[in-house]
């Protein structure tokens, strides 16, 4: 069902977003705690990173159908005798 595909994509997207956000947040927290003296910015950065990645992934996933894949064609030469 092609109509369900979109839904599926959105589901994936959301899931991915959540994961990435969480991971980013987590990593941010970690980094902030570990390296950056409990500043806020790594957390935000990490969360933003996560969100950004999720966004990009989502977009790519939704876009995936429209992207043109090009291939360099080999040079063929037909010699007619």
């Amino acid at each position, binding site marked *: 069902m*092609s*109509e369900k*595909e*979109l839904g599926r994509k959105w589901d994936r997207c959301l899931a991915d977003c959540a994961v990435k956000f969480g991971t980013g947040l987590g990593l941010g927290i970690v980094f902030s705690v570990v390296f950056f003296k409990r500043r806020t910015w790594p957390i935000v950065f990490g969360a933003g990173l996560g969100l950004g990645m999720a966004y990009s992934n*989502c*977009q790519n996933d*939704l876009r995936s159908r429209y992207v043109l894949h090009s291939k360099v064609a080999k040079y063929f030469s037909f010699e007619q005798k």
Partner: protein
Amino acid sequence: MLRVCWKGAHAAARQCVCGKVKAHPLQHCRRYTTAGDSGSTAGKIVAASLLTVGGGLGGTILYAKWDPKFRANIEKSVPYSDQLFEMALGPPPPPLVPLQKKPGKIEPLQISSLSEASKESKQPKAKAKKSDPEPVEAPPAVEEAPAPTPQTLEEASAEAAHIISAIGEVLSVPAPGTSDESPPGHTAAGEERKDHHEPALKERPAEEVSARLAQQDKAEQDALAALTAGLEESLGSSAKTTLQAIGAQEAALTAIATHTNKLKEAMDSQTHPDEKSTQWKALNEALSDRTRAMEEAEEALLKAKGELEILRGVINSAKQSKIDAARPQILAAEENLHSMIVDLDKVVTKVQTAQTEAKIVSQYSELVNEAKAQFQQELANITPEIQANWKGLSGKLSADDLNSLIAHAHRRIDQLNRELAEQRVREQIHIEAALEQQKLEDQKALERAVASALEHRREDMRLEQEKKVQEVREVMEAEMRTQLRRQAAAHTDHLRDVLKVQEQELHEEAQEILNSKMMEQETRYRRLTQEQLDTFTLDMNAAYARLKGIEEAIDSHVIAEEEARKAHQLWLSVEALNYTLKSAGADSPTEPLEGAVGVIKENCAENEFAQALTSALPEESLSRGIYGEASLRARFYDIRRLARRVALIDETRNSLYQYFLSYLQSILLFEREQVAPPVKLAPEDLDTFRLLAYATYSIERGDLELAAKFINQLRGESQRVAQDWLKETRLTLETKQVISLLSAYANAVGLGTTQAP
């Protein structure tokens, strides 16, 4: 050159009318001047070109007038030049016909004679036989009737001689006996023969011809025999007479000789007087003998001469008769004649010499007698009393008589001495006169002898020539004969060949006719048999056809029933298929149509249309079944919602932001859910929302097909979203279509096979 012009222009510019010399106006001036210059030069150029063209044209026309070949060439190469030429010069001269050289008539007589000869060779027998009587009729004045064949033969020989001369192998010797008369006679005969040839060429039968030939041969033989007989006769008689004449002449000769001897003896007068009288008597006898012999000789000579003349006449007539076979005889006769003449002449000359001798002797005797007589007369004058015969008076003479006698004798002696002296004196003159006379006589005799010798020699020569001519003639004849024989042989060969060819031709003709007849017969026979066969076949065919018809009727009946059964079956199976369609659940597809379709296929294995239709069913419907309309309709609303939401997304716009925007659009856009679609779609109708509205309208009205069409027009993400639904709808529609066709077909077949009761 250009610089010169430039400079000239420059100079001209200085003097030009256009005013001050400046850099700029120079250009203008230059333009003007070049224009002016160019004007004059252009004029010059134009004039020069016109002149050249005119000159060329004029020259061409003049030359064409002079040389027609050139004119023809130009007319060929340049398209409209012939009209120009015609205008300028008049029509072209007619083409010269090469002079036909007539073959020179080389000796037309020879050619005609050759053609004659060739014609002759082609039909020699016929024409020879034909021409045999022809020359007999034609030139009767020239030839004698009893010798036509020799004439023809001679003509033929003359022709052959002509041919030979034409070939140039042998010197053309005119046929003997045809020296003067034959050529004109031949030409006359040839022409006449030519005339006779063209009108009538009938062949005489062989027997007649051979009879004629035999006749002519016989005539010739007779003539020859007569001629020979005549010649021999005359020869014999002339020989006899000549011999007689010669004998007579010889007798005369001997007589003269004896007479002369006797005379001489008598003149000697040394014998006894008695003997003298006897001598004188004998002399007289001899004289009479001589005269008689002379007369006889004369007679005989005349006779002989006459006979010889007759012989000559006969020979001439024989010559005139012109029979070839007699020629040698004629020649022999001529020779004989000549020899006889020669002999006669010889004897005559002998006789004449003897005669002259005798004359001399007789003159001498006469003189002696005269002297004696004179002496006696003187004696008688002196001694008148003494009688004539003074010999017996020697004892009776007196002394006076004796003295007178002695004186007389002395006187006589003196006289004689004086005469002798005179004579001696005159001797020379006499001798000279006699010599002269003798010379004259000798001259005459010489002349006569020369003349006669010349005559004889001439005669000899003539005879020799005749002999030679005869020989040559014979050689020619032999050669002619060989040539004729060769010709005859060639002719027979040719005849043989022609006959062979003719035989072949006739044979072939006969064979052809035979073949054609056979073919005719065969074709007729074949035709008849074929006709019989045909009629029989027709009958058989008719019967068979009827049988076939009956069988077919039965079969068709069976078939019709079969068909009906099949149609029934088909209809039933289609109904079954229809029924399976109804087994579609709310969201689940129908049963796979395989079974029912398989049944149909089984039932209608021979039905191509049904087979085609069943094979046209899509695979999916067979294996998986199709969705019902209701489920599709329900699904459609989902599709619609989704499509509205992603209406903005396509290849160019597909970021997340666009997704958000398109969602926003779908929320904010208010429109009617169902819009009646127009009959024709305009481009602005291809908007997603519009299309969806049309599709909804169609769906609500139950027109799934139209809805599917509208959904097909979606583009972008909406299209992608609606793809599956469209596919399913297509499947369903296809299957439904095929099934409806099948049922229609089944109905039609059923209708078709139902027979009215």
